[in-house]
């Protein structure tokens, strides 16, 4: 990484802000990011491609007469031109609901850059992918196996007319493996991957491949799904998808624009008492870790739902102005890093308690339709039947539907154990409607 490039850019961005000011902008915000990454990928069980990438990008936001214009580009020599274009656009631009970018606030430091991650060589990623491929091939030589690894380093700088000048650097790695098993017209997909900013013990090729192997074993046999209203067992990696409507519901933009069913319901019991959800941008090395939002406002740890009671809507600067609320430091009104508070009993006990239900590992077609209202209807991409507390086999051609606000309103049990990153528990919900094509 050529560190000096970003340092030069600071003065370039300051000049840009001045240019915007003198061209009639009452406020301006410029940000610039530079990133370099290297990756490798295995297809059909052998190394297929490796390479590197470098990218630069900048974003300009200006306020002119209470209206906002934006522009972006990747040629630094065109920065002045793009600032001018943003100013022209601002004349027809969106009505801004703020007058100025706020002054610098007190930041909570969080680690996002790791020397160990920088030391992750391409050769080691290739070796790790090879190791995962080998483990999977040993189980079944006919599998179509793919694996990928990547390492990334980036630096970002944001300068605003509020006086904020903030630099952040970040490293990240990712490692994953996927398999496809085809028997006639029957196709099974399974996969698992991890990523983190620091190269810690999460980087574990044998564990990642092991998770895929568990799915392959569980899916050896196909069984009929239960139908009607059943219990569903949701693993940590699927839980965020089920929480999606609630995150759309607390998005301040959706609240202010009348799209959220949670508008006006702060302090009400919306979800089951077992559910506490916190947005925590200050977990060191987490993928969502972040000190300031894109407007230069410090991020903060916030409880969104406390024992099922709605506690917080998320607002960026502009939306806060629109809603007459305080900004919460959430760019785009999105959370950064959700943590769900664990329950009392281990996931093994939750599973053992299910007489008849389904275990949902992957969904197809989820998130279409009226998801903000909680309504969903989709296929189970990979799932198992649970009978008398045991996984009895894979279910196919199975459709699930329901309203997530109803399904998560009561009778939700969360496990005491969380995923490797300490984010999400297993969850058991009741009354999920299941239909089968063969039924």
């Amino acid at each position: 990484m050529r560190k000096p490039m970003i340092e030069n850019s600071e003065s370039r961005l300051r000049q840009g802000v001045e240019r915007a000011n003198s061209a009639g902008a009452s406020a301006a915000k410029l940000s610039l990011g530079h990133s370099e990454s290297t990756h490798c990928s295995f297809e059909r069980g052998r190394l297929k491609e490796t390479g590197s990438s470098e990218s630069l990008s900048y974003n300009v936001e200006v306020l002119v007469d209470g209206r906002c214009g934006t522009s972006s580009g990747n040629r630094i020599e065109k920065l002045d031109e793009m600032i001018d274009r943003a100013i022209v656009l601002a004349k027809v631009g969106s009505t801004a609901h703020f007058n100025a970018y706020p002054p610098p606030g007190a930041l909570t430091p969080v680690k996002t850059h790791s020397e160990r991650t920088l030391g992750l060589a391409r050769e080691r990623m290739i070796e790790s992918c090879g190791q995962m491929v080998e483990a999977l091939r040993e189980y079944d030589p006919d599998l179509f196996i793919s694996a990928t690894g990547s390492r990334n380093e980036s630096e970002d700088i944001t300068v605003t007319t509020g006086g904020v000048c903030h630099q952040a650097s970040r490293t990240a790695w990712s490692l994953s493996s996927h398999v496809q098993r085809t028997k006639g017209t029957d196709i099974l997909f399974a996969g698992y991957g991890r990523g983190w900013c620091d190269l810690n013990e999460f980087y574990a090729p044998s564990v990642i491949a092991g998770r895929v192997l568990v799915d392959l074993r569980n899916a050896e046999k196909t069984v009929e799904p239960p139908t009607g209203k059943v219990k569903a067992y949701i693993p940590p990696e699927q839980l965020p998808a089920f929480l999606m409507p609630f995150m759309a519901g607390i998005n301040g933009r959706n609240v202010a624009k009348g799209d959220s069913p949670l508008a006006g319901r702060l302090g009400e019991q919306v979800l089951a008492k077992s559910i506490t959800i916190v947005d925590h941008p200050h977990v060191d090395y987490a993928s969502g870790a972040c000190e300031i939002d894109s407007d230069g406002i410090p991020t903060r740890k916030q409880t969104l739902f406390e024992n099922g009671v709605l506690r917080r809507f998320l607002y960026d600067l502009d939306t806060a102005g629109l809603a007459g609320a305080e900004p919460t430091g959430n760019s785009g009104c999105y959370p950064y890093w959700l943590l769900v508070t664990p329950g009392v009993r281990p996931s093994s006990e939750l599973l053992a308690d299910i007489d008849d239900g389904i275990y949902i590992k992957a969904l197809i077609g989820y998130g279409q339709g009226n998801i903000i209202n909680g309504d969903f209807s989709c296929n189970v991409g990979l799932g198992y039947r649970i009978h008398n507390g045991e996984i009895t086999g894979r279910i196919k051609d199975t459709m699930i539907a329901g309203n997530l606000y109803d399904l998560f309103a009561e009778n939700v049990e969360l496990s005491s154990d969380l995923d490797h990153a300490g984010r999400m528990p297993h969850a058991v919900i009741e009354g999920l409607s299941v239909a089968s094509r063969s039924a």
Partner: protein
Amino acid sequence: MKARLLKALQKSTADYAEIRVETEDSSVIAYRGREVETAGTSSVRGGIVRACTRGGWGMVTFDSLAQLGEQVKEACACAKLVGEEKTELAEVEPVDAEKPVTLEHDFRGVSLDDKLALLKAYNDIILGAAPSIESSSVGYGDSFRTVYFASTRGNYFMEQRPRVTCRFMAVARDGALVQRAYDGISSTTTYDAVLGMEDKVRETAERADALLRAPKCEGGTYSVILDPELAGVFVHEAFGHLSEADLVYENAQMRELMCLGREVGVAGLNVIDDGSLGNYTGTGAFDDEGTPTGETYLIRGGALAGHLHSLETAAKMGAKPTGNARAIGRSVPPICRMTNTYVTNGDIPVGELFAGVDRGVYACDAFGGQTALEMFTFSAGYGYRIENGQRGELLRDVTLTGNVFQTLKSIDGIGNDLVISKRGGGCGKGGQSPLPVSVGSPHLRIRDVVIGGG
């Protein structure tokens, strides 16, 4: 640019290398509710070097063109690290072409004020269409993309790919019930395509309002008639992606599943992908490996007839390249993709299709779809009950699901009213989304389709 790219490629030590450089200037203006939500513009340039040695690929992406030669060398070094087999890339006719375009009415010459006035008019129509209309979204976007390509085979092309799009959505609410309706248009030839859509905009808003009073479609198995828009999306999503040869060529089981000649549908079923067809969103002169686009039968007479190829998949499957190696942008490699994909006309008038259904669902328009090879799920924008061959009441929440091979075999009627959608779709694959594509079909009647109930 030609000389510059070919000079940089002289540094290649690989079996094959190519450089693709793109510039793209785009702008977007969008209303949400009463206010302008976004006004932005972007100008980017960059590219990718791909090199292949002994069958292994090295790829380097860049934003600055200052060190092209070095980037070619690095991509070649990466490829060398990977390759242990044989480089197999199909030969195509040499290409040396420049394809500038002249727009009938160039969107780059239209003033911001005019664009804004147009959007405001559409937005006002939506907001005033019914008391239940709570919010709206009207978005305009244009993009002028120029692609430069050169390879160590001496091939070179430059192609300009302009596109203008207008999309609109109405949101209607009754208490906790929210319904949306969408429509839009896309053109590669003229700004005027986005003009004069007042009636369409009004219909869309009125539909969102009417859906509030429509009952949910009860879950169950139905005879279903798909309108051309939804049928086109169905064929693209559920079947088309399986024809993409990069999913097939190295996978023995998939090759068997998708082997040419296999009967997958009724005798009258033909599905074609054609990147050279007219002026649709998926149309272009070359794919992103320099192969000219053309017509490929995917299904002919109910049997599998072809795959969509890149140079590599064509060579490895002993087929001719079809011009379907497409990349969504400057920093990603081309992968096998569809262009304009459609079902050809059958011979049944639409009225007769309906007459054959005692109790069923007429499913219209697509909100979106997703597949995992054999399984698909997608949501219709709206639907109608069919009773005794007659179109009945409006239905909401119509979600179709099933196994694509069973479903294709269950098609028992193909209409004679082919429509290729002007809406312009965005296709997603391998993290590359939205790639411009078009879909088309006549009305299709399908037996025993599972519709999910809420």
